């Protein structure tokens, strides 16, 4: 451990295996690695232990074949509820099994017989995860970076100093920050200002200030800043946000001419623009981003075949997100993953109902991961036609894979307040803005593009529309057609149920939501 004397001593491992022989051997091996070991012969028991002490373990190692519960199910639960790295083990190394492990979120898959040398380095998974999370948060422009890191102290994040190890409190904040900076985006520097997270409230203030001043192009950042009366906000923050806002609005103007939902699904009469925009799309059911409210296309409506989506989503869980139509739409519910609550979700979940079965965490991470890298600008903010599929991906998607969903962050459907999360600094911010077109427009009492209300849940279009709908607000969510297909529902990763941590809305709710204008109109 050259870096800083970091040592994995004390790593708290939970081993789950129904084979008593293996359990004994693994326990011995892990102890020899100087880890703190807890053994368990049943999956349910393991879950119980994990839930009891949410912050009590750093990593879980489990056999794939458990008598009381499928190891993959356990894996999902752990990933979902606790955000812990899980290593799967099996005597079976069949490709399909390993694949399944990966799909369900395993950070590694070991073949039995397992050797000491393999166990000696499992700590890397814990470290990696922590680093990713912190990076995500940093990237999101979370202003309270330090606070968050403090909280991580309890999570046994690695720290500085020679005798630092898992299980001990970090001694040195700076070390961690330094480590993070080293690890993070090359463009970041220690002098980098904390990014501003444009939460809905903040943006509202901004918009109100703009309105107060009058026509936005007359409003200068200084004036807006003054009106907003947000002490920690700087003129630069406002200036860059204003720039993006202007761009966004101008695109909206253009979009008004097209029949579409604000940033929503486009109907039959798509303009040629749509076609171009769509070019990047490959998957059925996906629509291209609606850049600035106008050019989304869900033209593939009829081609949508929910089934593949369902399975695809499962298989893509850890890979590029099957993003629901990249309709950039706005929607509301978009609860900025970037908000502070997002961080909470990164931490061991305490509140997630046990019902959840998917892996939010994975999503979140990737989602958040997305944020920081300017180089990644997946969304070409301005040139819709030239979008390639990759670019169409919402900012929240991880190109590298992992859909990002901040389940916890989704506003409840009943939460009619469109959440605007605008991120400063990044092109990604743009995207966010677009999502909230509707909300913004409404708040500004601007005319909304018509036609969106023609969405009904009964037609094929629904599918598409729904699929294009980002009402789940998020990015990583795999948008499935869950409106009308019960079987699909059961196949859907439960994370979709995260929508506000509630159950999946049923079709009726959708109508409700649409009517309430919760969807991007």
């Amino acid at each position, binding site marked *: 451990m050259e870096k800083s004397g970091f040592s994995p001593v004390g790593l708290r491992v939970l081993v789950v295996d*129904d*084979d*008593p*022989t*293996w359990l*004994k*051997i693994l326990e*011995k*091996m892990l102890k*020899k690695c100087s880890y703190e070991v807890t053994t368990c012969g049943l999956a349910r028991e393991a879950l119980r232990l994990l839930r009891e002490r949410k912050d009590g373990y750093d990593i879980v190692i489990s*056999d794939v*074949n458990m008598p009381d519960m499928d190891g993959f199910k356990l894996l999902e639960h752990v990933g979902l509820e606790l955000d812990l790295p899980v290593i799967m083990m*099996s*005597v*079976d190394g069949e490709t399909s099994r390993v694949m399944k492990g990966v799909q369900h979120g395993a950070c590694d898959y070991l073949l*039995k*017989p397992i*050797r*000491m040398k393999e166990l000696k380095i499992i700590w890397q998974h814990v470290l990696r995860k922590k680093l990713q999370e912190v990076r995500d948060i940093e990237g999101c422009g979370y202003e309270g970076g330090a606070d968050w890191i403090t909280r991580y102290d309890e999570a046994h994040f690695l720290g500085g100093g020679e005798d630092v190890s898992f299980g001990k409190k970090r001694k040195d904040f700076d070390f961690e920050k330094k480590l993070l900076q080293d690890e993070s985006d090359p463009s970041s520097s220690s002098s980098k200002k904390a990014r501003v997270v444009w939460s809905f409230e903040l943006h509202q203030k901004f918009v109100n200030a703009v309105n107060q001043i009058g026509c936005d192009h007359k409003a200068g950042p200084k004036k807006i800043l003054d009106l907003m009366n947000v002490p920690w906000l700087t003129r630069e923050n406002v200036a860059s946000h204003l720039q993006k806002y202007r761009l966004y609005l101008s695109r909206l103007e253009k979009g008004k001419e097209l029949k579409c939902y604000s940033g929503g699904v486009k109907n039959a009469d798509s303009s040629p623009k749509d076609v171009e925009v769509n070019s990047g799309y490959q998957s059925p059911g996906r629509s291209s981003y609606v850049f600035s409210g106008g050019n989304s296309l869900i033209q593939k409506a009829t081609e949508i075949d929910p089934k593949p989506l369902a399975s695809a989503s499962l298989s893509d869980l850890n890979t590029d997100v099957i993003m629901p139509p990249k309709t950039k739409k706005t929607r509301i519910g978009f609860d900025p993953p970037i908000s502070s609550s997002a961080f909470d979700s990164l931490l061991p979940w305490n509140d997630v109902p046990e019902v959840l079965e998917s892996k939010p965490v994975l999503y979140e991470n990737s989602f958040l991961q997305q944020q920081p890298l300017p180089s990644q600008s997946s969304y070409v903010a301005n040139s819709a036609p030239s979008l390639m599929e990759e670019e169409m991906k919402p900012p929240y998607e991880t190109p590298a894979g992992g859909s990002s969903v901040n389940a916890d962050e989704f506003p409840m459907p009943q939460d009619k307040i469109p959440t605007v999360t605008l991120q400063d600094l990044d092109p990604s911010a743009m995207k966010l803005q677009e999502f909230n077109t509707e909300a913004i427009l409404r708040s500004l009492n601007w005319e909304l593009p018509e036609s969106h209300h023609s969405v009904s849940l009964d037609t094929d279009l629904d599918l598409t529309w729904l699929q294009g709908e980002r009402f789940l607000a998020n990015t990583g969510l795999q948008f499935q057609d869950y409106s009308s297909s019960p079987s699909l529902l059961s196949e859907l990763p439960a994370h979709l149920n995260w929508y506000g941590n509630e159950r999946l809305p049923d079709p009726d709710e959708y109508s409700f939501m649409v009517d309430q204008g919760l969807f991007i109109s």
Partner: protein
Amino acid sequence: MNTTVVAQLQRQFQDYIVSLYQQGFLDSQFSELRKLQDEGSPDFVSEVVSLFFDDCSKLINTMSRSLEQPDNVDFKQLDSGVHQLKGSSSSVGARRVKNVCISFKECCDVQNREGCLRCLQQVDYEYKMLKTKLQDLFNLEQQILQAGGTIPQVDIN
């Protein structure tokens, strides 16, 4: 301590264990197990191996019941049992037992009851054979220790 006796015993031990590897009774996993044994757990290997044999006995009984009725064989359960046995045998390095499991699984896959029965018999034979062999080995170890000597590290890898 009679060093000659100790040396002889140690030699015997070494030869014996090497022969077990050579004859395919054991594979390198067993060697790994021996490395794990230390002052903190001086009987680690024999404890683990006991667990394994107990497991074998249980699994074989279950599988035997699954195969009892010719027209009502639960191949799924059988397959599960074989899988467990395979996993278990891999934990101690019981190579021959593991190999039988591979054939056993194939028989399950094609629902060959006869084949399964044969495999079951073979697996039973192999694990009991190994049990005897290892018992002899542990006895030798005890003799060495009692004679005041230390057990040789025989690394097969």
